[in-house]
């Protein structure tokens, strides 16, 4: 049992560190602003966040140890089975499910709801072993748009799709699109609002554009004979593409105006304080001040461009271009070396 206890305590430490990465929602614009704006009425949005987080949270704790390492350890069959039986209990979701079951039994609540949650947990647990292959297949479907920056844009799209921010925005966009198709009497303002909500979900990602590049990727940026604005443009092109596609069925003018402003404001923390990000988590945004500026500026820009005059997209574009130029130059500065 000494060996099993040693392995379990190592797994527990790794699980706790991994779950620390979920603290990212504490500095994520979407979570902060929806919690503030909707408070108790935000049930649907909280459900989306919870469901998105359930999958990565459900991962098998034993996967924290490399397969090669665990098979090399001198564990006999009995110890292995004990480990297999106990390790799921290192995941707090398992305890929540158990508590939920006891509560359901005592209060005779709907078993179907608990069943759905348990099934989602089981799916996440099982898929954590297969997830890599499925993701590779999806990532390969993203084409290289060609040109000087094509491969970088392709890579940046893949990175963006491996964050929960994107999937949250996609679910919001799909829900709103279905609503628009079903209810033709819905006021236009609803879709302006939904476009803003989609952009809110993506806005924290715009504050940490280099967070998934890793040390190797950041080194490569400095080695490539590209100017800083070109590197930043490849990041922004991927973001704009996603933003335009997700808001196209809703209010594309508002979506584009918001995306340009979100990027213009987000360049500052993206370039000055590169925060490493974790895949399949919500992005860890910048300090709240940048988030507030981002959200207010994008709301004004989106409202103005879609309600008043489409030409208000031009000042948004100008603000974006100035930001691109300024922070592109900062990327090139070897003494500041933001990418070193």
């Amino acid at each position: 049992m000494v060996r099993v206890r040693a392995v379990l305590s190592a797994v527990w430490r790794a699980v706790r560190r991994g779950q620390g990465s979920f603290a990212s929602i504490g500095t994520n614009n979407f979570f902060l602003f929806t919690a503030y704006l909707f408070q108790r009425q935000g049930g649907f949005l909280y459900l989306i966040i919870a469901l998105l987080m359930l999958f990565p949270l459900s991962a098998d704790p034993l996967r924290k140890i490399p397969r090669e390492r665990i098979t090399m350890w001198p564990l006999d069959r009995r110890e292995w089975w004990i480990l297999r039986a106990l390790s799921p209990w290192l995941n707090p979701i398992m305890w929540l499910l158990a508590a939920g079951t006891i509560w359901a039994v005592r209060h005779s609540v709907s078993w179907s709801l608990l069943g759905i949650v348990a099934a989602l947990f089981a799916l996440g647990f099982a898929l954590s072993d297969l997830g890599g292959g499925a993701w590779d297949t999806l990532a390969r479907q993203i084409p290289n748009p060609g040109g000087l920056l094509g491969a970088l844009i392709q890579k940046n799209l893949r990175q963006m799709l491996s964050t929960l921010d994107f999937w949250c925005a996609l679910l919001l966009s799909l829900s709103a699109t279905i609503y628009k198709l079903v209810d033709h009497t819905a006021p236009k303002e609803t879709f302006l609002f939904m476009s803003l909500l989609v952009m809110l979900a993506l806005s924290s990602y715009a504050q940490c554009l280099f967070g998934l590049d890793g040390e190797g990727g950041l080194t490569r940026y400095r080695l490539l004979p590209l100017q800083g604005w070109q590197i930043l443009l490849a990041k922004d092109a991927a973001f704009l593409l996603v933003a335009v596609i997700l808001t196209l069925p809703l209010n594309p003018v508002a979506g584009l105006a918001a995306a340009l402003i979100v990027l213009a404001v987000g360049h500052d923390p993206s370039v000055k304080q590169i925060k490493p990000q974790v895949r399949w988590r919500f992005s860890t945004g910048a300090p709240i001040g940048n988030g507030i500026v981002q959200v207010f500026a994008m709301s004004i820009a989106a409202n103005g461009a879609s309600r008043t005059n489409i030409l208000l997209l031009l000042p948004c574009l100008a603000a974006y271009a100035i930001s691109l130029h300024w922070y592109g130059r900062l990327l090139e500065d070897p003494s500041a070396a933001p990418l070193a």
Partner: protein
Amino acid sequence: MILCKDLTCRYGEFLAVDRLNLEVPSGTICAFLGPNGAGKSTTVKMLTGLVAPTSGTATVADLDVVRDSLRLKKRIGVLPENLGLFDDLTVQEHLDLTGAVYGLTKEETRDRSTQLLRVLHLEHGRQTFASRCSHGMRKKTSLAMALLSNPQVLFLDEPLEAIDPVTAKTITDLLETLAQRGITVFLTSHILSAVEQFATRVVLIRKGVVAWNSAVSEIPGSLEKLYFDLVEAPAPEDLAWLGSAQS
């Protein structure tokens, strides 16, 4: 081709490289050797524009490494210490990126990458994401990227480590051919026996200071003996519990 004058790099209080003076002519394979933390990688980073020198100057391919960094990047190929790969791109996509950025046509990129992947025994991993590659495959990918643009100067940080013997031999043969064609190769390594076979110049560095700089032919005795004498000698220690009765 590479010229350093009093090149210095300081990280806070730590002096990583102290007034390095160096001249490496065209067509030279210069091995830059020293223990971990001696300043090898920092020197490579300064010469490739990754880190700004604290003081001193350096020119590579007649370009100042600070003032002309963008033009310099077009003339050099680099295998960096951390390999500089993106997890979200496959081996082939890394080469496509390099070709596009260095101004090669699609046909040139395809032909050159096919040849490089064949030479480096990496054809089987062409469509593998960098995040799924072994360390050896990642190193070969980074090396292929360094060579693809036909650079004037090659900087290779530990190119032979974690590489299988056949590929290592292929790489050393390739480097010798490149040097004969006038390309300058500046590399770091810990494999002294291999370096002694193909390098034409050796620079030993210890605590940021050059301890030896000469042509390989001028080394008295073996490179290993020189290294142990000037840089660091092994200090054997008997771990008595190793090999004793099983616990």
